[in-house]
């Protein structure tokens, strides 16, 4: 029997075992329900269609103001309804009662409770400016047709990023968070399973029966394959559920992810998960009870949460900063950092390539080391420290 067959056999058992585990199934289901609820519920309280601003008007307004204002608001998926008011006092009363959201006074002042909505403010300004400009041009003898072509003379500007590739804009920002958060969630969600799986084998002593027939590295590799596949499956279920729910209610525009962003994110999630999974399995093998495991896995939890925090608070606000660049090349932090920087378009291609190489190599080394530590810990009695397991003698 080849090692590959042995490993597949073990991985099959591990996978089935997880799928039969109520905590895993219910946890995944509950997370999916919360995720879908988070997408669906806000839309239930949202008005369908464009947002309408009630705008009070006092005194004269330029001809064509209403269509000009609607044109401005169209881009923001909004429109305006104008109500004529008698005077300043009436406007103040209407604003105060909430009858109108703001009132335009003599086309010069915009009155609101606190500040007027930014969108409306900008649209009113834009419309007035455009009308004034059109007025001036017409006075200068330019006819209406020419006027139209002048006003619509140029396309929106294209954004060029001097730091590298063009960014993905807001969509990239969402994706950057998504890959980092998914990796973090996958590790948090499955770290405990990895721990308890290894502890169960050790505390029930079944591991010695297994080791009569298979080698420790077979066990470790099979566990990593099984748990990484399950974690990816879980992520796929979450993404599928979110996209499915969104397809029904249309809560947000799906970011137009490029294949490159997706491929790099997927690679980094897989490598990052495997890296932490290998260490969590060792931590489990070092413990002899679930209580012990809180201690042996402590440094790992610290590392994961710490990395996640650093990426959220340091890398995403400053994706090209020195810290971001350093974190790109460290195997434990790269899987959290690189997808974020790629999605924000804030990383040169060479850094992606070098980081991928470093992370793959680092993870491969970590798995080898984990294999050695696992083999040393798995038959040892009692609870071991990381120092003790480093010094302990591995079995084959």
């Amino acid at each position, binding site marked *: *029997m080849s090692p590959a067959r042995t490993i597949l*056999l073990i991985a099959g058992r591990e996978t089935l075992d997880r799928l039969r585990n109520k905590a895993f199934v219910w946890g995944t289901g509950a997370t999916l329900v919360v995720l879908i609820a988070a997408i669906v519920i806000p839309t239930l309280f949202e008005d369908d269609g464009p947002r309408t601003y009630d705008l009070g008007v006092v005194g004269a307004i330029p001809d064509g103001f209403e269509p000009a204002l609607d044109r401005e608001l169209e881009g923001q998926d909004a429109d305006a309804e104008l109500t004529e008011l008698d005077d300043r006092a009436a406007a103040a009363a209407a604003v105060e009662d909430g009858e109108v959201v703001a009132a335009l006074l003599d086309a010069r002042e915009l009155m609101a409770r606190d500040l007027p909505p930014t969108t409306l403010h900008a649209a009113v300004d834009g419309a007035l400016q455009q009308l004034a400009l059109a007025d001036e041009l017409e006075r200068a003898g330019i006819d209406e047709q020419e006027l139209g072509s002048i006003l619509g003379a140029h396309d929106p500007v294209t954004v060029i990023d001097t730091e590298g590739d063009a960014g993905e804009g807001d969509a990239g920002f969402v994706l950057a968070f998504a890959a980092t958060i998914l990796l973090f969630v996958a590790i948090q969600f499955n770290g405990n399973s990895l721990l308890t799986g290894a502890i169960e084998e050790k505390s*029930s002593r*079944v591991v*010695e029966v297994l080791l*009569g*027939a298979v080698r420790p590295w077979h066990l470790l590799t099979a566990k990593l394959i099984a748990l990484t596949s399950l974690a990816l499956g879980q992520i796929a279920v979450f993404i599928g559920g979110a996209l499915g729910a969104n397809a029904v209610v249309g809560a947000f525009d799906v970011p137009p992810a490029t294949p490159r962003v997706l491929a790099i994110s997927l690679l980094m999630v897989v490598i990052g998960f495997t890296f932490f999974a290998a260490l969590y399995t060792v931590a489990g093998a070092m413990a002899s009870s679930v209580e012990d495991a809180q201690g042996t896995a402590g440094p790992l939890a610290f590392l994961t949460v710490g990395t996640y925090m650093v990426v959220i608070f340091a890398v995403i606000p400053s994706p090209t900063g020195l810290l971001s660049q350093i974190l790109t090349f460290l195997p434990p932090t790269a899987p959290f950092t690189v997808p974020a920087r790629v999605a924000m378009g804030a990383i040169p291609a060479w850094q992606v390539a070098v980081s991928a190489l470093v992370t793959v190599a680092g993870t491969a080394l970590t798995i080898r080391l984990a294999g050695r530590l696992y083999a040393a810990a798995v038959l040892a009695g009692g609870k071991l420290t990381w120092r003790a397991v480093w010094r302990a003698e591995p079995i084959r």
Partner: protein
Amino acid sequence: MLELTGLTKRYGEVVALDGVSLTARAGRLLGFLGPNGSGKTTTMRAVFGLVQLDAGEVRWHGGPITAAQRRRFGYMPEQRGLYPRMPCGPQLRYLARLHGMARAEAEAAARRWLDELGLGERFDDAVSQLSHGNQQRVQLASALVHDPELLVLDEPFSGLDPLGVAAMSEVLRERAAQGATVVFSSHQLDLVEELCEDVVIVAGGRDRLAGTLEQVRASSEHRRAEIRLTGGRALTPPPDIEVLDVREGVARLRVPTDLDAKELLDRLAPEGGVERFALQPPSLSQVFRDVVGASVRDLEAAVDTEAAS
């Protein structure tokens, strides 16, 4: 044939194995006997490559053990264990497959063994739902399910009631009769005495005596005698004969091997009137004491004291 030669293993200051050798033959039951802490478990683990030996060789059929050969071994570790939540049948089937059996074959073997041990109805029950005794049976089945050529059992009788001991002995005899090589360890020498065909006595990480049961017994300079004089009259033993105990008029004696039965009787009861007399080979624990110079219990107590200090 399993041959271990000169196995040596140190853990820091502690010498676990100090040159253990043993040979186990096909079709025979070998008892690997000695006190706790004498290196039995380390030796057995070495057969499965679970110990990095400092020196020594483990050979099977005259050569180093290959991975394929090792899958034809069955192992019952001292620390028993199965997946508690996994059902018995699928668990045995899984272990059989890990030992290289095809799926259908493994399934059939799992059912056969559960039936044989009277657990046919419990195929789909989790191991943790079984009583302690039944869990032990499943454990035994897990070592046997793939029909191993070599069966290594570490303290298989510990924790078994007399019925369990009888059932386990029966299974081990059957396996040997079918041609398997069977090695089991025990620190309860007298419990397993009648089961052993071959014996290796180990103490302090070294084999001290090996051979067939008769050879090993013969190596002792003493035999056991049991005598009751008519009416339970008191006995005055000669100075070279040690009285082990006297209960209800029955005296148990330790007598030199070269003392002839007739001569012994004459010396113990010169006027006759013997109600009961038996002359037996020494018990294995007696042999152990003769060879090692200390009893199993004394050595175990010494190991415990060492571990505690």
